[in-house]
């Protein structure tokens, strides 16, 4: 038995076996925290446009680097999943009769995610490759 809350949570999360709903919840938390981390950095760097323009140009150089580019593809994934799953949660909250269609809604979340993320990742990945001199279609 773990003695601290986080350890206990992780331990029980593995044991709980809540299947679909538990995965939806875990992904929602992780994607939400990831977006908040990026958003906090992004608000501060964008405020440099007003407070310190030369520093903004420096921040942009960082954004145009390959690791940051890959991070932005992951950010896109987090935003798209969080949007789709958040809409599912909201719909079930306001239309309780839909709780009987949870499985279908969970499938729809992933259909939306795949249909929107794959073209986005392709376009963003193409931009990253172009920035290092590799031109793809």
């Amino acid at each position, binding site marked *: 038995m773990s003695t601290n809350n986080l350890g206990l949570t992780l331990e029980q999360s593995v044991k709980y076996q809540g299947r679909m709903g538990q995965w939806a919840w875990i992904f929602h938390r992780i994607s939400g925290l990831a977006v908040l981390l990026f958003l906090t950095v992004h608000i501060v760097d964008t405020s440099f446009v007003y407070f310190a323009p030369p520093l903004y140009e420096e921040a942009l150089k960082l954004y145009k680097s390959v690791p940051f580019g890959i991070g932005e593809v992951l950010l896109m994934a987090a935003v798209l999943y969080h949007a789709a799953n*958040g809409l599912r949660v909201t719909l079930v909250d306001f239309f309780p009769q839909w709780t009987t269609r949870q499985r279908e809604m969970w499938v729809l979340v992933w259909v939306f995610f795949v249909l929107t993320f794959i073209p986005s990742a392709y376009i963003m990945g193409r931009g990253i490759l172009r920035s290092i001199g590799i031109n793809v279609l």
Partner: protein
Amino acid sequence: MATTVLPNRVTVRKVARRGRPLESYLWFFMRLSGVALLLLAVGHMVMQHIQNDVHDASLEWVLNSRWAFAWIRVWDFALLGLAFIHGLNGLHTVLVDYVHNATAIKIIRTLIVVVGGIILIMGAVAILGAPMPVR
């Protein structure tokens, strides 16, 4: 707190009505802002990463091609407020799930409000204060 026994076995107990707790308003805010962010946040990602490419961005581009339009400043202002408060409240929800010490929770809440507030004001001042391009 009067208990009235009505004829025919129905018991009605009157309890004092209490106001809605802040948590219930925050619950509603999360759904409402979440729906707005479907357009604002996903739309922002599409504009910045699909329609445009970050590799073409520059200070001039932000000032002349984005913030030169009032509607984009309105969009960014709404996005800033809704997304950041939505995110900070989400962070609070996650943290109080794992931290149960009352003093620690108070410190966390204070930090979220103060640090979040400063960053929010920085962003708001930049969006509203950045100069319009000279035509």
